[in-house]
């Protein structure tokens, strides 16, 4: 009997050893994950999205590693390396490379006994598209708007009367220049502190043409203070042309249109200094402004100048309203050049802009009503 008991215990020991081995096999991890590389639609061929979905339970495998390479001249260059903590969630990463048609290789790794082992690989060649279909509505809107501009410019050129309502601040431009002339003081014009690419700067340079013409007619000295080198060249051209169209090219002095300073606050201090020393009779602050707006407006006020300001920077309009005599709010700045010059091209553009806005207003109201009854067609296909 004792013999059987001993044999039974030995066999139990042997089986328990086997059982331990079986546990070891169970704990042997097979890393599983979904690794997907997807080319980004509607781009120039540089964007792609990496999607990684861990398929192991977090208690099985806590961390994965990802390495993304790009192939250049048959050589793999690492572009990103990251650790992904397994929380059972899918990770999506939008990424980009510099060139289209780049071969992208993504590899997933896991760690075992301190060694990093690769278990999955995906590759993709990024492709570009000629047409961004997501922005088709904007493209159609642009075509429509440009067509409207052509139609109204043609109408304006044919001599048709195009009505533009009175814009209060603009009526005062002549009075301000007249006042400066009577006082024998110069006129200061600052076309904002932004670059030439800014729409407000372009609008301001258009107004500068009208102001320059009027100033030349009145033979009043005018100083144009500029912060950006490229704007300087354009402003000089505009003022010279304005003096010529007024029949007074002899009055134009290139040095009156000058680069006051390059930095934002350096420009502000230079303009403040110039205002205090030359005491202008009228100051025009038209264009894009940032934090320097109040500094300029307050200084112009302290020297007793009439100030006409205008900007499309919503954060600066309040300062101009508080410190200046007349302020052009937002779009009034764009309308100003057409209002002042009555040029067919600008008037036609302003009219087209108005009717396009009207069309958008109707579409928005229609979209609101349709949205109320659960039809999202306009929001989905036009306004998104």
């Amino acid at each position, binding site marked *: 009997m004792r013999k059987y008991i001993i044999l039974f215990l030995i066999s139990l020991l042997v089986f328990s050893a086997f059982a331990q081995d079986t546990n070891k096999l169970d704990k042997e991890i097979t890393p599983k994950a979904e690794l997907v590389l997807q080319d980004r639609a509607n781009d120039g061929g540089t964007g792609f999205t990496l999607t990684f979905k861990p398929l192991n339970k977090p208690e099985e495998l806590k961390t994965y590693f990802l390495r993304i390479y790009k192939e250049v001249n048959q050589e793999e260059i690492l572009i990103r390396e990251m650790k992904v903590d397994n929380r059972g969630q899918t990770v999506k990463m939008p990424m980009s490379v510099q060139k289209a048609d780049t071969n992208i290789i993504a590899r997933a790794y896991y760690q075992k006994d301190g060694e990093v082992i690769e278990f999955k690989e995906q590759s993709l060649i990024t492709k570009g598209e000629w047409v961004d279909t997501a922005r088709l509505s*904007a493209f159609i809107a642009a075509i429509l708007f440009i067509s409207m501009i052509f139609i109204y410019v043609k109408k304006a050129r044919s001599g048709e009367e*195009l009505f533009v*309502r009175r814009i209060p601040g603009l009526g005062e431009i002549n009075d301000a220049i007249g006042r400066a002339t009577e006082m024998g003081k110069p006129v200061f014009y600052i076309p904002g502190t932004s670059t*030439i690419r800014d729409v407000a700067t372009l609008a301001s340079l258009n107004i500068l043409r009208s102001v320059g013409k009027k100033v030349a007619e009145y033979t009043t000295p005018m100083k144009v203070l500029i912060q950006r080198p490229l704007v300087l060249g354009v402003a000089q051209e505009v003022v010279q042309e304005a003096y010529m169209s007024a029949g007074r090219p002899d009055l134009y002095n290139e040095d009156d249109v000058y680069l*006051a300073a390059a930095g934002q606050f350096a420009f502000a201090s230079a303009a403040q200094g110039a205002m205090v020393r030359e005491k202008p009779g009228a100051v025009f602050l038209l264009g894009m402004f940032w934090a320097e707006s109040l500094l300029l407006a307050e200084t112009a006020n302290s020297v007793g100048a009439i100030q006409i300001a205008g900007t499309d920077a919503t954060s600066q*309009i309040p*300062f101009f309203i508080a410190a200046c005599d007349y302020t052009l709010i937002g779009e009034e700045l764009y309308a100003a050049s057409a209002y002042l010059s009555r040029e067919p091209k600008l008037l036609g553009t302003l009219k087209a802009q108005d009717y396009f806005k009207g069309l958008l207003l109707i579409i928005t109201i229609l*979209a609101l009503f349709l949205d109320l009854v659960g039809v999202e067609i306009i929001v989905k296909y036009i*306004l998104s």
Partner: protein
Amino acid sequence: MGLLAWTTIGVILTLAIFSFLIKDNPLYKFAEHLFVGVSVGYLLVVTYTQLFIPRVYQPTKNAFNSGDIFMSIWMIVGIIIGIMFLTRLTEKHNWLSRYPISITVGFYSGFAIMPSLYTRVLRQLGATVSEDGVSMINLQKIGLFFKNPSWSTLYEATYGPLIVIGVLTVLIYFFFSFKNTNPVIKYTRKPAMVYMMVGFGAAFGYTFMARISLYVDRMNFIINEWWPLVRVKLF
């Protein structure tokens, strides 16, 4: 000692600029001219190191070295257009500078059309109609307010409609083709002005606080940085 000297110069320049609040004076003039000179010099160095070298010189050199003819021609054309701008310095050929100016203005004007239409017009109007798929005029939220009137339900019910009314009236305000006596313009003018002034008032307060923080920063520099340094080094 070097740190104390530079910090003291910073304090003197700060006070020199502030002295303008009393009146224009030689100290302010000195600080102003120094500031202007430094900014122009800085711009020159930045343009050379961050624009000319990496965007002009290096790509041209690389194009020539790698024998990329297309890129070389492209770079040379760009450089010639850029150099044309310098003809402003001559009286005889300054008309040439109009070409780079017109190219730049034309490019940026054209380039601005699509992003402006897409982000500033269409998407903004889309957000006026619905936000995250929820209609801005939400009858359920309005109904909830009448069922259970409270500040939070009132806010939820009026938030969307107030934005919609604001956008539409302010948009009508900026129509320039109709007379001020036109009934639509006449009756939306005042609400639009109220909306804008409320917005401007909020922006004024917000930006004013930002300006105050700039002043606080300067005072902090003088009181908490410079003065302790003076006390440690000199007393």
